[in-house]
């Protein structure tokens, strides 16, 4: 039989948010990369919510951007509304969220991929992984074509054996009616890879011209938009924005849902996959939070290309007729016409503990994976993993040191560490509470944290890296200056303090001490600081945050110091835990299963006690 056989360095399976980042990273690092997708029209598709970012997810995008990823740049080119969330709270939890024009987002990403040197885009379904002696050697497609390669990155999203369900209707398709990938799971199982079945869902899309917006509250974007990407000129993102709308469910909505619960596939047992608790369907909310009289419903535009509106807060897998009745009870949606039904989707993914923190499979050298395939959820979580998997696939091919971000360096580090170290029973979503060092992991300093890493792997160019070094120095110098600049209670100073509702000075102090007062800031005291050099806005911001929250930041830095110690103690990959006497049985089994790369990672595995860690330390040192 004649068939195509081609050679590549890296094969990426899937063209969603993880796949795009992985493919771009591989190609940009100079490796011959091919990206497979079941449909070229679905590149960088956003099959659920029409936005990028949000609390802690915004952090992921900024980090990814600092490392040289594409998502931030792409959303800056295609957003239709943008908001900095949590502005009234501390800088650590400020988070960007932008509404995307879905079509534009997809098109723009496709253009970037098409114009990328070293990158081939290929429509086709990968059905089999080719492995020899524990090493990946290539993939086979449905047509029988063979693509030899040195590394594979699996980013199959929700497509593996996907099934979409509402009521008693179920379709064996991927999201939005796209073709599912029905063969790869078997190939993975044959290779001894443990699979999970997860579930998620999406709300209906409604024709915008059938919505009565006068019954809803209009939600505007920020007046001054902050771009996601550190490379985007802030002037370029000051564009006219679209509005979102807020309305609420009511008792009538809830009654319809309660009356029809027996027809929900979730409650009838038709759906087996594990769904995410943070993204509950409206029927879940009504059941679990029965005392709540109403739930928020956000009406969000899908883009400029369509009048379809996304009904945020009301995802469901109830039958069509119930959906229609239920949506019609919501003020403003009384006469709404459904364009696309809400549905739940079930899909195969892996138990991610089979991965190293590099996102390479422990069992199969050269096989990497990212995104929902790894048991996460969300575009941003997917993109972040895709980037890391892509970078590490490239590093593997080049024989260079792989990139692992730890929990003190990035939300991406927290995300991956959680995935590969903790028991994961539902699609994993990033949350700010998962980051224990979040005062250090701010969205405003992602460039300072990660540009260097991006430059080291080769995704950030020299000029950009030089800029960050200059910025770092400017921040350092300015902090030093204001920590040492003393100031007395001159009439001008007292007058300013009084006007800002701050206690007048009784004795001399430093500018830094003034900035630390809750009601003051670096900006606020400019008029009494004549020696202040001219600095860029983002340098000033860093100075303000670092000085103002100095005490807290120092405390976290101290914690990080302790944390790093254990992270830096590496465990040999071939350690035989059976030989470590005195380890408790449970610890032995868990350690064998997870095979942590460091003592730090070992200490986070549930079932491994501090005493076990001490024992390991003693064992390793002899």
């Amino acid at each position: 039989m004649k068939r195509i056989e081609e050679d590549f360095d890296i094969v990426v399976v899937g063209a969603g948010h993880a796949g795009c980042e992985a493919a771009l990273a591989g190609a940009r690092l100079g490796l011959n990369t091919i990206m497979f997708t079941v449909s070229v029209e679905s590149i960088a598709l956003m099959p659920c919510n029409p936005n990028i970012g949000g609390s802690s997810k915004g952090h992921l995008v900024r980090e990814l951007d600092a490392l040289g990823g594409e998502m931030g740049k792409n959303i800056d080119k295609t957003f239709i509304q943008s908001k900095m969330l949590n502005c009234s709270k501390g800088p650590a939890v400020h988070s960007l969220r932008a509404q995307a024009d879905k079509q534009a987002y997809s098109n723009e990403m496709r253009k970037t991929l098409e114009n990328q040197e070293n990158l081939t885009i290929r429509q086709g379904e990968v059905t089999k992984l080719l492995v020899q002696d524990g090493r990946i050697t290539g993939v086979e497609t449905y047509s029988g074509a063979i693509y030899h390669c040195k590394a594979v990155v699996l980013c199959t999203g929700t497509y593996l054996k996907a099934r979409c369900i509402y009521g008693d209707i179920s379709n064996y398709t991927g999201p939005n009616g796209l073709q599912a990938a029905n063969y790869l799971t078997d190939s993975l199982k044959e290779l001894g890879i443990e699979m999970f079945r997860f579930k998620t869902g999406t709300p209906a899309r409604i024709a915008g011209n059938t919505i009565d917006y006068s019954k809803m509250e209009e939600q505007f974007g920020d007046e001054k938009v902050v771009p996601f990407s550190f490379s985007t000129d802030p002037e370029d993102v000051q564009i006219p924005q679209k509005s979102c709308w807020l309305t609420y469910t009511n008792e009538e909505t809830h009654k319809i849902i309660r009356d029809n619960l027996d027809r929900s596939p979730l409650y009838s047992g038709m759906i087996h996959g594990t769904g995410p608790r943070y993204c509950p369907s409206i029927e879940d909310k009504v059941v679990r939070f029965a005392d709540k009289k109403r739930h928020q419903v956000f009406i969000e535009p899908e883009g400029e290309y369509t009048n379809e509106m996304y009904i945020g807060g009301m995802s469901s897998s109830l039958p069509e007729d119930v959906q229609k009745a239920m949506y019609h009870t919501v003020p403003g949606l009384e006469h709404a016409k459904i364009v696309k039904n809400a549905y739940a989707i079930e899909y195969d993914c892996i138990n991610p503990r089979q991965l190293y923190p590099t996102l390479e499979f422990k069992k199969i050298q050269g096989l990497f994976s990212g995104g929902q395939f790894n048991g996460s959820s969300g575009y941003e979580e997917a993109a972040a993993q895709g980037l890391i998997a892509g970078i590490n696939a490239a590093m593997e091919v080049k024989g260079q040191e792989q990139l692992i971000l730890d929990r003190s360096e990035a939300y991406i580090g927290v995300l991956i560490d959680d995935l590969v170290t903790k028991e994961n029973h539902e699609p994993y979503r990033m949350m700010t509470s998962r980051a224990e060092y979040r005062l250090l992991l701010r969205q405003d300093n992602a460039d300072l944290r990660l540009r260097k890493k991006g430059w080291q792997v080769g995704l950030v160019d020299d000029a950009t890296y030089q800029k960050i070094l200059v910025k770092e120095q400017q921040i350092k110098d300015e902090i030093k200056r204001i920590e040492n600049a003393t100031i007395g209670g001159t009439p001008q100073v007292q007058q300013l303090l009084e006007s800002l509702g701050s206690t007048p000075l009784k004795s001399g102090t430093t500018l830094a001490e003034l900035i630390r007062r809750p009601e003051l800031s670096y900006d606020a005291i400019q008029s009494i600081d004549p020696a202040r050099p001219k600095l860029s806005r983002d340098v000033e911001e860093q100075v303000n945050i670092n000085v103002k929250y100095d005490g807290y930041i120092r405390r976290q830095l101290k914690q990080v110091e302790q944390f790093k110690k254990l992270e830096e103690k590496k465990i040999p990959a071939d350690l035989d835990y059976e030989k470590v006497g005195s380890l408790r049985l449970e610890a032995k089994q868990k350690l064998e299963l997870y095979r942590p790369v460091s003592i730090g990672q070992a200490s986070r595995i549930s079932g491994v006690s501090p005493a076990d860690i001490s024992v390991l330390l003693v064992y390793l040192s002899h």
Partner: protein
Amino acid sequence: MEKTIAAISTAVSASGIGIVRISGEESMDVISRIYKSKGGKKDIRKAASHTIHYGYIYDGEELVDEVLVMIMKAPRTFTGEDTVEIDCHGGVYAMNRVLETVLKNGAKIAEPGEFTKRAFLNGRLDLSQAEAVMDVIQAKNQSALNCSMSQLKGSVKKVITQIRSELIYHIAYIESALDDPEHISLDGYPEQLLKVVKIQEKKMDHLIATASDGKMIREGIRTVILGKPNAGKSSMLNLLTGENRAIVTDIAGTTRDVLEEYINLHGITLKMADTAGIRQTEDVVEKIGVGKAKELAKDADLILYVVDSSTPLDENDHEIMKMLEGKKAIVLYNKTDLDPAVTTEDIRALVSHPVIPVSAKEETGIGELEEQIRKLFFQGEITFNDQVYITNARHKEALTDALASLKMVEQSIIDDMPEDFFSIDLMSAYESLGRIIGESVGEDLVNEIFSKFCMGK
């Protein structure tokens, strides 16, 4: 930098001398904060390595103990780190006070087996000893864990669990508002949280006070009251319990627990026999016979022997006096309000134990009895299981850490800091309290967020 650790490194017992050991980079700082030489001028930090210094340990202004301090600088020490050993007076109280002072001034309580572990990791032990070291660590941890769990009073565990569930609720509330600001608002929340924090602080203050008394732990001086029928045992008991209403705590659920079995004499807990409560124990000789009384007396740390001074000594008394041999006991010369049929001298001629005249009826002599018990206790004459105090020190440290974290939350609220700063220290408090009841954080927060707050798209 490894944290500086400390522990009592001799058995906590009635021995004449005990050693509190400090190891780690800050050892010299810690000792310099609490040590005063006789003249008060010596800077212990400047002392040469491997030298011994006479002086005093002070907890602030308060003199804790007269001690010898051994200064040993790295690397020629057991652990390979800067080490200080404080030779203090033996006995539970003195040693524990010295350890407490050390902990208060910058050291952390050592994990079980930690000195040995450090010695090994710093190359101070032979490689062939690795296996043994690992066994020691595992074994010590197991026993410490068991002890810690079993010693913790049910009521204390209950309070800690309550505080923790209150804390995690509020952390989850803040965090869900941060994660989903459009669903959950924090307007006016700081004031509310401040109230909650203050209430929890109060509960913890109380627990710390009980920890200092040793009340936190389910242990006390095992005490038995003996005496022939009608000697006045039950009146004595009533008097003791009546005098000590302070034991009734303001924490719901603790009252019964404590009143039934424990009597507190100004910080010293007496555990009144093992039987199901004071009422049943009072007539132990009559009801369950001399046999049972003997058994109880044998296991007791302290025997209170009540003598009826208005009747002559009889065979019951002689029987009881035999039981006192080799035990710590106090003779209560009761009914001094009546005409004596036997004198204190008669009794002193028969037993070597202190004799205190009391009148249960007129409520006299109780002060002297308490004083006598305190004296025996502080001198290390009577004591109990040494693990217990170590456990208590660990619990207390965790409580103190948790309280410090809550104080920071309070400060952050007062300073008008943004809400996300609150949850950082709330979480630390939650973690510290978890150490006491042996629970780590794990997925607690995420679970709490999802179960209590409706969020998401």
